[in-house]
């Protein structure tokens, strides 16, 4: 029961964050990346387990690409279907800068409550 509550909360949180993280990963990368590679980078940054299911990044990549935040090209692959390599656009970079600010603001706001919860309760009682 607790486990499913946790997962539900994590899923709701991820809604907008996946796009932000994907843009950030592609902005930092010096080369074009394809879906599987991005998934593995995210996982390795978090000790091998990704916070979101890697299957969920593909539709988001496609949505970002449809919004002109990413461009893509197709390269044949030996292991499976041709891979789509993504690169961030100028528009994507400016959107990323905006989203970063929003995220920083949201994070600070949430931290104000969750980090100092104990001491606040102490003061009010």
């Amino acid at each position, binding site marked *: 029961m607790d486990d499913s509550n946790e997962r539900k909360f994590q899923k709701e949180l991820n809604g907008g964050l996946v796009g932000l993280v994907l843009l950030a990963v592609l902005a930092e990368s010096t080369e074009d990346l394809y879906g599987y590679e991005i998934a593995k980078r995210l996982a390795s940054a978090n000790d091998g387990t990704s916070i979101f*299911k890697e299957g*969920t990044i593909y539709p988001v990549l496609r949505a970002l690409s449809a919004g002109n935040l990413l461009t893509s090209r197709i390269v044949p692959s030996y292991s499976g279907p041709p891979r789509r390599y993504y690169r961030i656009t100028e528009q994507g970079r400016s959107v990323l800068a905006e989203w970063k600010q929003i995220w920083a603001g949201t994070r600070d706001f949430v931290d104000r409550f969750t980090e100092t919860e104990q001491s606040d309760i102490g003061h009010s009682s």
Partner: protein
Amino acid sequence: MNRSAPRSIDQYLRQLREELGGADSALIQDALYDAEEYLRAEVAAHPDKSESDVLELIASTYGAPDEVATAYRDTEVKVKAAMATPRKEPHTAAGRFFGVFLDPRAYTSLFFMFLALATGIIYFVLAVTGLSLSVGLSVLIIGVPFFLMFMAVCRVVSLAEGRLIEAMTGARMPRRPVYQGAARGFWARTGEMLKDRRTWTTIAYFLSMLPIGIVYFVLAVAGLSISLTLIALPITVVLSQAGWFGMSASEFFGTAQPEWIFNTGFAIPILGVAGLLLLTSLMHLARGIGRLHAMYAKSMLVARVASGPVETEESAAALVAH
């Protein structure tokens, strides 16, 4: 949903396709393509493990088929809502009738009707040449590779046609081709393609695009030239009366009957209004044709949910055993 965890890529894709049942067929094709790219890359990245060992862990990394299906449905809905420009629907009948001029889809569909003649000729030539050469060469050894090459070209062209139709009519079409599975030799692949219903519907679509393209082109050219001529008529008459150039109403309708309508100039405003109505009807017609054509193209070019990559008998047997 209670079901056995997939043990092979084929099983995973089959479950994902079932989970996406009822979703747009183009969305399903994209989702299957993405999943296959990931799963095959994951299997290739672990050469020491068997396919079923890799698949065992897939639910915790890529996600179980039902989770992935939900992600695709949700993202599609959000993106569609974000990309659609909110448009005020006019309430009056006249507003709805003339509102078509504000709909960009009507213009792009009209453009598509012009373009359909050119693309129709190209598709027709491609299909006729490819088919006849495939049949003719089938007695020689190069017949099979030629047929495979012809089918590969058809797949690419049908994807491009899908992108064109999505751009022109706004109907969701696949953004990824259908992946035919790892190479299994000429004969196996040729047999699969011959059995695949979509192979034949794609070729039928290409052949049908020539007559369809001709009809669209004629409708668009005739409709536009007649309606624009009629609309231009009153303007021309007014300008000639004002002495901009030497023409009178009687010169437009020298011998037209009945005389009382044309020679008194009574018909001129009526014809102008008729031209405007005709042009508006043409825009409606173009938009309607665009929608119908998108449905037609989707039924012919996009794999049905029931088909898709051909399952091997081995994986089907494994699924029954579970």
